[in-house]
């Protein structure tokens, strides 16, 4: 997915100009999947030989992953495959059993690393939204900047309202989460993550808990973010979205990456038999 300089798109009736220096990492050469590891000069995320065990159950059995700046990586797989666990290892919501996880140059398991700081760089959007019900929508968004970055309330409100505008919910700033629909809640959650100005966004099945008619509004926001050059790692079942927006799609099954590649190849000519079976079972656009 290549992006030209100075392109603009219409989003929610406003012109959004795409970041000038964010060109697709591929340029004219689409990445070829298979055994060759993705390489880039300074990867945003590096995962090496990640193993994760819950008691006796080894959920992740050696995951190797590299995510480059500006890349949109989509992870799909059957339930129980470990894909959400893998994602949650990236911001250390899950403790790994062994392996290495490096985010923006910070080794997550180096004692010198401030995990709270790393988490401001890698934002997460949850399947269950996890908005703070005792605070207004705007307060949900500004809590991070105010408490972590020590931004003034006025400045944080300004930033927060701009982000709510971006996701199309500026008019809901004073509402409370339980007054919103699922799609609105998730968009607020995305705004909340964006308020910390992260370098990468992690999405854990962001639309799985939504009624079908609300899925589109969330995917639209995610698509816009991708076009702006945000680095994203998304665990999802939305194949149509993956096909359209992903730079690379990864199939995890039984704790291992079974196949990865650019969407056309991945969906058009899957090599791994389990992937083929999985795709045939899932109806996708």
């Amino acid at each position, binding site marked *: 997915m290549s992006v030209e300089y100075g392109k603009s798109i219409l989003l929610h009736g406003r012109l959004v100009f795409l970041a000038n220096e964010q060109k697709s990492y591929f340029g004219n050469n689409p990445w070829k999947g298979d055994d060759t590891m993705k390489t880039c000069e300074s990867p945003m995320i590096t995962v090496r030989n990640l193993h994760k065990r819950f008691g006796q159950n080894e959920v992740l059995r050696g995951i190797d992953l590299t995510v480059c700046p500006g890349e949109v990586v989509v992870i799909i797989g059957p339930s129980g495959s470990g894909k959400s666990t893998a994602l949650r290892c990236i911001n250390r919501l899950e403790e790994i059993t062994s392996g290495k996880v490096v985010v923006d140059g910070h080794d997550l398991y180096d004692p010198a690393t401030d995990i*709270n700081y790393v*988490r401001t760089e890698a*934002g997460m959007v949850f399947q269950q939204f996890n908005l*703070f019900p005792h605070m207004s929508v705007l307060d949900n968004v500004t809590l*991070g900047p105010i408490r972590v970055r020590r931004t003034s309330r006025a400045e944080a409100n300004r930033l927060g309202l701009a982000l709510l505008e971006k996701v199309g919910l500026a008019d809901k700033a004073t509402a*409370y989460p*339980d*007054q919103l629909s699922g799609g609105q809640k998730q968009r607020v*959650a995305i705004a909340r993550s964006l308020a910390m100005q992260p370098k990468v966004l992690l999405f854990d099945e962001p639309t799985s808990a939504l009624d079908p008619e609300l899925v589109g509004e969330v995917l639209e926001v995610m698509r816009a973010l991708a076009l702006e050059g945000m680095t994203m790692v998304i665990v999802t079942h939305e194949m149509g979205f993956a096909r359209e927006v992903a730079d690379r799609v990864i199939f995890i099954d039984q704790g291992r990456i079974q196949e990865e590649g650019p969407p056309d190849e991945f969906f058009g000519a899957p090599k791994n038999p389990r992937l083929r079976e999985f795709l045939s079972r899932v109806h996708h656009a």
Partner: protein
Amino acid sequence: MALDFKASVMWESVPLLLGGVHLTIIITLGGLAIGFLVGTATGLAKTARGKLPRTLADIYVEAIRGTPLIVQVMFLYFGLPLAIGMRIPPVTAGIVAIAVNSGAYIAEIVRGAVESIDVGQTEAGRSIGLTRMQTMLHVVWPQAFRRMIPPLGNQFIISLKDTSLLVVIGVGELTRQGQEIIAVNFRAFEVWLTVAVMYLVMTLSIARVLRVYERRLNARFGR
């Protein structure tokens, strides 16, 4: 021998009994204020990562919940001074006893409420870069506190009634006042009835305020 009921005894004893009520309320409020601080610290210690705070908290809670309050009161007033060589005034001992006792039960209330908050809340808080303390302070505690109100109100009522046990160490609270009046006029029926009614007025008032507060809190969160 039939009882000849004299209602006038009831009205006449009220002023004296009110003196007792005064002390009852002071001891309850003082004891609970300290008990709440102790209970919160202990309850949070029970959710801590380290083994030491958890173990200490467990010992304290189990010891208090497993022994009768009257034994705790007498230990504090009669036993402890012998060990430390210092006399403790009865009212002080009463407040401390209520504090230590309610603290243990409040610890469980706090722990239960905090643990009942969905883990996703903590995860979301940590994911935006909040520290454990900030997440507790801004995300978890405000939600947990709301859930604590009913059981805390219940503890208020319990501790208020518990103050009646302080009669054994001579604190001039409501029950003791009743005892002293009966020692003079022997009208046990009327006086104990009055004492009971006065306790009832206090506990029902607390229950009433609690219901109103709960309703207002729920309305604000649009539930």
